[in-house]
């Protein structure tokens, strides 16, 4: 069952041999495989997401594989739940995503697909492309952590400690697993003149590694350096205390968007 055409490619792998075949297709260097089950509604949803992504990324090959129908492959890649997504470049597994996280899947596809464009062009161009890619990455979120593994599964003690400190301080951050991309792993060291990981960036500026973050924590500066997760309650508290008199209304002072709000404005204005 192929939906092949100019619009993008979403194929089904029904056997181990077929799967191997698809991985080795010379015209696609990035292959995204969805391990799914027909009885799981999240999987059906994610198949739709895959179809959409296929339209957007015609250079990427999207594959559906029914996990229980092709157990050899599922076992080989230790698929224990559905949906799970694996990313392959040149037949090598480069990334994995567990669960029905459409935004995360989209992000990963974009990220891995964007690095494909690096394979063409002269060495100079490649370097320029890598640098602009790194710049984009360190600016991908107000607070970006480049680490070994993921916040849920750090794969080095320093990265783990970093995540713990950031979480302890309610700091909102996005992360990049440098094990998922050797090019970024090596490139960022040179780009930022910093030889080790984890690396923490705020608005694209390198803050430092774990030692520095620990010192910032000890001196109390960390809370001012990094953007904090605002709890709703805190936000509300801040808002109602913003001025001695606060009016929460429909519209604004100049243009009230409801009669009651308008009347209150008038009353307040009249009392001076």
């Amino acid at each position: 069952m192929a939906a092949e055409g100019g619009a993008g490619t979403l194929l089904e792998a029904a056997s181990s041999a077929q799967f191997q075949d698809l991985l080795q297709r010379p015209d696609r260097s990035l292959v995204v495989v969805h391990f799914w089950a027909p009885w799981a509604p999240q999987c059906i949803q994610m198949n739709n997401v895959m179809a959409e992504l296929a339209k957007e990324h015609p250079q990427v090959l999207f594959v559906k594989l029914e996990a229980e129908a092709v157990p050899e492959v599922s076992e080989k890649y230790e698929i224990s739940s559905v949906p799970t997504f694996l990313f392959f470049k040149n037949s090598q597994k480069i990334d994995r995503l567990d669960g029905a996280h459409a935004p995360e899947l989209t992000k990963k596809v974009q990220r891995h697909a964007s690095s494909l464009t690096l394979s063409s062009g002269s060495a100079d161009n490649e370097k320029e492309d890598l640098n602009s890619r790194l710049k984009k990455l360190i600016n991908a979120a107000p607070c970006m952590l480049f680490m070994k593994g993921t916040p849920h599964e750090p794969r080095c003690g320093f990265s783990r400690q970093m995540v713990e400190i950031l979480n302890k301080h309610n700091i909102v951050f996005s992360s990049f697993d440098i094990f998922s991309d050797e090019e970024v792993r090596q490139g960022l060291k040179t780009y930022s003149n910093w030889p080790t990981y984890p690396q923490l960036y705020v608005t694209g500026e390198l803050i430092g590694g774990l030692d520095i973050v620990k010192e910032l924590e000890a001196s109390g500066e960390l809370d001012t350096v990094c953007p904090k997760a605002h709890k709703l309650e805190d936000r509300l508290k801040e808002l109602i205390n913003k001025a001695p008199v606060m009016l929460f209304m429909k519209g604004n002072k100049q243009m009230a968007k409801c009669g009651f709000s308008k009347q209150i404005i008038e009353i307040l204005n009249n009392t001076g």
Partner: protein
Amino acid sequence: MEPSGALSAEALRERLLQGLEAEHVEVEDTTPGRCATSFKVLVVSPRFRGKALLQRHRLVNEILSEELKCIHAFEQRTLTPEQWAKEQEAK
């Protein structure tokens, strides 16, 4: 003498003392079993004056750029002589 190529806490200490005109350097081999792939260093140098932490760490990283290629885990603290003196007094 160390066999050439092998890292030792003492060799790192020498590099830092010379490279950063350091007044005080402590190097600890933090490798389990002390097989010299993890180190923790404290460097006290006047060259850190007026420099942010990031710049200080970069200085250390530069001095040890060759060594860092073989080091698996590296922790550092960088203090000016004034900060170091204050810390000693507080003890």
